[in-house]
């Protein structure tokens, strides 16, 4: 136990830890969608969609039954009334004969369908765009209306599944996909999570290589390997080092995933954890009966498992490196391979792949197979180290 703790101290060199903290902050800034939220473009039309969806969940709960549809309609009416007040106070629109929302839509369509516009019409079109899209107050209301329209539009439709594939659905799946209620989870949140888990895996893999390669190469360069090999107790230290590496990656992964999950609170996304794991625009997830929070947990556990068992592979690679430059080169090559593997395995892992004919369980099964393979590699490594000869150094 003492040796394990000392090995962990060697792994978590303070200089590397500081570098990793800085790197994590920069990585989040550059690649993670959660940092960019709310910005629009995350399967959303604007930065108002997801916060508005959060308000709906707060008001109506995580889902809305079809016989409660009047609540959404009332909400829509409220927003339309607010818009009409703004239109009434807008002189430019009023002077062009627009006094109600209906007139605004009609004028907008008229201008859109007209081939070429004169100067006045171009100016009016610009003013309408400003009112509906760019004005912070009214633009927000229009985007909220659009979000409500989207929920209404997809009510009861098997969205995300082609007509050809609908015929393939058996009764159980057809029933699953045509529910009598709509989950208020917006697709943008699913998108943010899926994209971020891809980059989270990359971040943990990079940190694993940085820590474990430095640790093993330092051991090699300090010349203690022949000492380890020359006694029975010394040879046992190799297995302690392997466990220390696994525990170090477990700590790093747990911290990274924990911090990521905690970020959902200040970003206002934690409210969606209670929603069912599907959105009105996308209901092709297999595990749509569970909550989004549970889905996040299962997904993160899969990523954690892959990274923790991947630490065995990282340790074996680091043991091969004779100097830091070799270690960096091995890290780049092997790390890239690991990243592409985990990216393909975890991206939309539980999405119901009707069109590929693949079992939906294939990706989690492959992760389990990889973990079992890593355990075998660890066993082989430990046995080899036990029987190591000094001349094999």
């Amino acid at each position, binding site marked *: 136990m003492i040796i394990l703790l000392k090995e962990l101290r060697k792994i978590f060199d303070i*200089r*590397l830890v500081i*570098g990793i903290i*800085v*790197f994590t902050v*920069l*990585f989040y*800034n*550059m690649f993670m969608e959660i940092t960019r939220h709310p910005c629009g473009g995350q399967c959303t039309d604007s930065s108002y969609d997801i916060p508005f969806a959060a308000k709906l969940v707060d008001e109506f709960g995580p889902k809305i039954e079809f016989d409660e549809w009047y609540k959404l309609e009332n909400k829509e009416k409220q927003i339309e009334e607010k818009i009409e007040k703004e239109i009434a106070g807008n002189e430019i629109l009023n002077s062009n004969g627009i006094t109600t929302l209906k007139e605004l839509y009609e004028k907008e369509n008229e201008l859109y369908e007209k081939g070429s516009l004169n100067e006045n019409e171009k100016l009016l079109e610009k003013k309408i765009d400003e009112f509906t899209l760019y004005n912070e107050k009214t633009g927000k209301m229009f985007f909220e209306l659009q979000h409500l329209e989207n929920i209404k539009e997809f009510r009861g439709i098997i969205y995300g599944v082609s007509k050809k594939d609908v015929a393939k659905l058996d009764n159980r799946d057809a029933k699953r996909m045509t529910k009598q209620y709509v989950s208020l989870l917006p697709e943008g949140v699913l998108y943010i999570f899926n994209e971020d888990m891809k980059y989270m895996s990359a971040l943990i893999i990079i940190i694993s290589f*940085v820590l474990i*390669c*430095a640790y093993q*190469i330092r051991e090699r*360069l300090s010349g203690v390997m022949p000492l380890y090999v020359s006694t029975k107790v010394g040879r046992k230290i190799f297995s302690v080092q392997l466990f220390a590496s696994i525990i170090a990656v477990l700590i790093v992964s747990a911290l990274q995933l924990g911090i990521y999950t905690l970020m959902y609170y200040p970003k206002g996304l934690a409210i969606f954890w209670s929603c069912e794991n599907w959105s009105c625009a996308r209901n092709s997830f297999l595990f749509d009966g569970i909550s989004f929070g549970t889905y996040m947990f299962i997904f993160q556990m899969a990523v954690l498992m892959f990274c923790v068992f991947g630490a065995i592979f990282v340790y074996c690679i680091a043991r091969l490196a004779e*100097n*830091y*430059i*070799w*270690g*960096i*080169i*091995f890290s*780049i*090559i092997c790390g*890239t391979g690991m990243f592409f593997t985990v990216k393909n395995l975890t991206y939309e892992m539980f999405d119901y792949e009707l069109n590929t004919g693949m079992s939906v369980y294939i990706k989690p099964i492959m992760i389990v197979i990889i973990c079992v393979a890593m355990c075998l590699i660890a066993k082989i490594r430990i046995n080899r180290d036990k029987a190591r000869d000094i001349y094999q150094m």
Partner: protein
Amino acid sequence: MILIEMKRGFKNIFLWILIAFFLVFNFLSIFENYAENDKKSEMSFMHSVMTGTGSSSAKDNQQKDEIALYSEVEKAYIDYKEQFSTLYDNLDMMKILKIKEAKTGYKPQGEYKNYIEKNYKKLQKRVEQIKKTNEYEGNFYPGNIYKTHGFLYGKLKRSLMIQTAIIMMLSVLYLLDYERINKTRDIVLASKRGRKVAIDKAVAGIMVGIIDSMLLMTLTYVYYFINVPYKNLWNTAVSAVVMAESRMQMTYPFITFGDMTERKYFIATVIVMILFIIAVGLCSVGIWFIFENSYFSFIFQCIIYLLMMTIITYSWCNFFDVIRLLINPVTLYCTGGGWFMENDMALSFANNEFYCLMVLFFEMGVLSATGYCKYRRRDK
């Protein structure tokens, strides 16, 4: 001594393995874009249509089909050229500037605004010059369909910049840290000549990095040009209408600062890339002299470059943006697809790439000199 160190650098087999790995990566990228399925034969066919070297007589039915297809593609190409032939007619660079400002939300103020508008007026004069000298004519792969410029000078070049930078860093750090890793450092440092060996190692590391990088670039570009033939197209101006690609939801031609054919543009790009990686090498030298550890030096450099990439997005809408971009070492990477042409609003002046390089060399030179002074003091 430099030659001995260079030999040592070339004997590092894992660096060659890394180069091979990057090469496979680049080949896959080119294959995915221009060689997968029938894409390669489509590119050769397109090339023969553009250069007018298609077959004119049919010996069998297959050749008759080919001739029919050739005529069809030729007609489509002529229609494409005609459709884009009016791009220069109403091209107004001031309007482009206004649209860019609106889309990016970048609002220059005061004298800085006048400065940018002055640059764009110069670009408008360049547009007039292009129209006058008929530089906009010329055959090339249709830009909006094949996006050859965007791929070759954008995506592929950016990948190569990162890869060659890594190779340069590792070449330099391997040689500089060699003595420390092999525990011969104390012996080497015991003599005056030995203490100066670090300079020889630095020079040798940079030379090895340049040669390895050039090898990677050469093989990558050879594979690219095998799949995307450029024969008889090298004299086409980069400002040609047919080469225009959509960017920022606008389709307008590439407005180069000077008369640049594809050949000149390619050579200039390669020169800037080589100078850039030399600067990266100098940076590695400087940082190693400070840390005296190849691992921390590499990680520190990666973090610094990532930090620079993060802060490049922050702007102040005044002259400080120009200074900010000139002193940032990753500016050349970020402006990757738009060297020697109208691109970033703050860098809308000719030869901005060379100004960036000059400042970069100055910074890295100061860093290396400071690092070496610290290193020398430590030994005494």
